[in-house]
């Protein structure tokens, strides 16, 4: 990891508003040329973090390093980073060309170069012929592409994107995702992308960081974050999750845990977050799509119950099952023509291969909460 050049490093970054801590001791390194996403629910501090990197807000403490340089005290206009905002922020009194040329003029590029750079960038985002249009004559997607061109034309070291697709409808969002990803590859600029949509983040990013309550809970490749969450919040935020509470009863040499479930005393072994102690309160993460209906075999975690809810979503069927002992569980099945739908109230057996389970620590009122600093300092 250390061999990769650092584009941005946040060190103990904290932003406090009055009594509210928006960003809480965030440590993060983003590499050059990386597509990095910060995800989390609204109010988790992801946008504030982005604004601090842009220089539109300032940290209460901690520092922002761009490459090796501390830019924490530089005003926004001096930072070689640019932002694409959620509300586009196009200047309504300027046409598309002048919007894109805005920063180049501030940089005092020669007139001829400006025209050339702007045209090239407009071509790149597919708006080559729209230079003379006013922003209000453009659709939402087109406006966002102008905003993108306006930021990218400056050749920033890092491009910050603050929920840039939030105002677009689903289909347009998919298109824009493709455009963003291909632009990022082509231009090899580091992208820092903020969104509350984990699916969007997962599909585009090299790595993601999950934020909650101002803290960075976990950083990693989308696969890792999804399959191997470090905290309950991450497990729950990045997808549907069945979390079964239990206690660590045994640890073997390879770091596999033996866990006893609290609800029904069932014992099983599975891998999980390294370093858990004997007796630690944990949860086993069983993703609904890994669950099987009426197909249990040896070495699996099983639960009996009846179907309480069915929702059919085209490619998949989601069942909610009231289990005997483990509460409500959800499971997703492939909706192929042969299997059909299971009816409500039908008694079923759910099972998960223990190799599909993942053990992570949870806080319990009776025990000490996990030290916070460790929680923010993810893989």
């Amino acid at each position, binding site marked *: 990891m250390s061999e990769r050049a650092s584009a941005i490093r946040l060190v103990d970054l904290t932003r406090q508003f009055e009594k509210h801590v928006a960003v809480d001791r965030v440590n993060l390194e983003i590499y050059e040329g990386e597509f990095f996403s910060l995800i989390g629910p609204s109010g988790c501090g992801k946008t504030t973090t982005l604004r601090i990197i842009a*220089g539109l807000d300032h940290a209460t403490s901690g520092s922002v390093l761009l490459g090796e340089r501390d830019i924490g005290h530089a005003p926004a*206009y001096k930072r070689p980073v640019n932002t694409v905002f959620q509300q586009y922020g196009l*200047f*309504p*009194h300027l046409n598309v060309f002048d919007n894109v040329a*805005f*920063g180049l003029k501030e940089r005092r590029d020669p007139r001829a170069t400006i025209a050339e750079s702007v045209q090239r960038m407009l071509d790149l985002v597919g708006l080559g012929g729209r230079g003379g249009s006013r922003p209000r004559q453009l659709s939402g997607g087109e406006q966002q592409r102008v905003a993108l061109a306006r*930021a990218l034309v400056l050749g920033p070291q890092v491009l910050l994107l603050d929920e840039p697709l939030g105002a677009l409808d689903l289909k347009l969002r998919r298109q824009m995702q493709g455009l963003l990803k291909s632009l990022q590859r082509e231009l090899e600029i580091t992208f820092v992308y903020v969104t509350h949509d984990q699916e969007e983040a997962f599909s585009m990013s090299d790595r993601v960081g999950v934020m909650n309550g101002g803290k960075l809970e976990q950083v990693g490749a989308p696969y890792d974050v999804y399959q191997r969450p470090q905290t309950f919040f991450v497990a729950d935020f990045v997808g549907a999750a069945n979390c079964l509470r239990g206690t660590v009863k045994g640890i073997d040499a390879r770091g596999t845990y033996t866990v006893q479930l609290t609800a029904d005393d069932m014992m099983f072994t599975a891998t999980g977050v390294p370093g858990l102690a004997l007796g630690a309160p944990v949860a086993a993460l069983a993703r609904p799509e890994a669950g099987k209906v009426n197909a249990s075999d040896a070495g699996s975690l099983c639960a009996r119950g009846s179907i309480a809810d069915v929702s059919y979503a085209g490619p998949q069927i989601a069942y909610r099952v009231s289990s005997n002992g483990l509460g409500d569980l959800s499971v997703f099945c492939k909706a192929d023509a042969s299997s059909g739908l299971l009816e409500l109230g039908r008694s079923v057996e759910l099972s998960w291969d223990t190799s599909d389970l993942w053990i992570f620590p949870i806080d319990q009122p009776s025990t000490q909460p996990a030290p916070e600093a460790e929680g923010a300092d993810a893989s």
Partner: protein
Amino acid sequence: MRRVSPKRVGGVVLTLFVLGAFIALYAPLVLVVINAFNKNVLLTSWAGFTWEWVKQAIDSGRVRSDFLTSAEVAIASSVLALAIAIPAGLWARAASPRGRQLLDATTYMRIVLPEIVSALGLLILFSRLHIALGIVTVIIGHVVFNSAYAIVIIQARLATMTTALEEVAADLGARPWRVFWRVTFPFLAPALVVAGLLAFAFSFDDVITSTFLAGSGTETLPMLIFGLARFRVDPEVNAIGVGLMVITLGCLGFTLLVAQGRVTGGLVLGGFRSGEET
């Protein structure tokens, strides 16, 4: 006007009342206009149409010089009012709620307090400071109320502007004053036109402040009318009055057009349409 249903007698009564009130309000203005073109010097009855009085007014050296004085005062005081109101409005955006309240209070005070009181206060101040009365003191007096109107208008415009666009500009590398010049100012432009024209109109027809602060050597057009009318109301006074009305109404009409965004597109080059979402 929409027809009132005959069953709604209350509605009819209300309509008649409002109509009567408006006739009463506008009758004097109509009289002034009629009498500006009335052949009858005594203005006791209509004796036919004539341009005579208008010509007389235009030919009068005193009227022309007073018109110029009024115009100078109006232009200078509106420009100064804007020069005060723009920074005040910008300051208020970043100010604490308390600071804003203070600005609002002092602004509205200048609008609400009797003009005669502030004129008197200025007169006393100028004489204490041994400042000779003249066109400059009149301009200062007009700035007192003009700046208040300008601040109200500019603040109203700024209230519709989030800081988002300015942040975008800063993010794109614009220094603070460049942000103002390239983003804030174009956004404000329609409000500046409106504020300037209103200030001009208010200044142009002011009597009280001008009378207090003009001294003996300076006279504005409204002062002239006031002076003439104290002896007798002759047709020429009416003609001057009509001229004043035309100028003031012209300003207000133009202001309304700007406020509705009809002229801004062309007039304020590259300006934001007023009322446009940011």
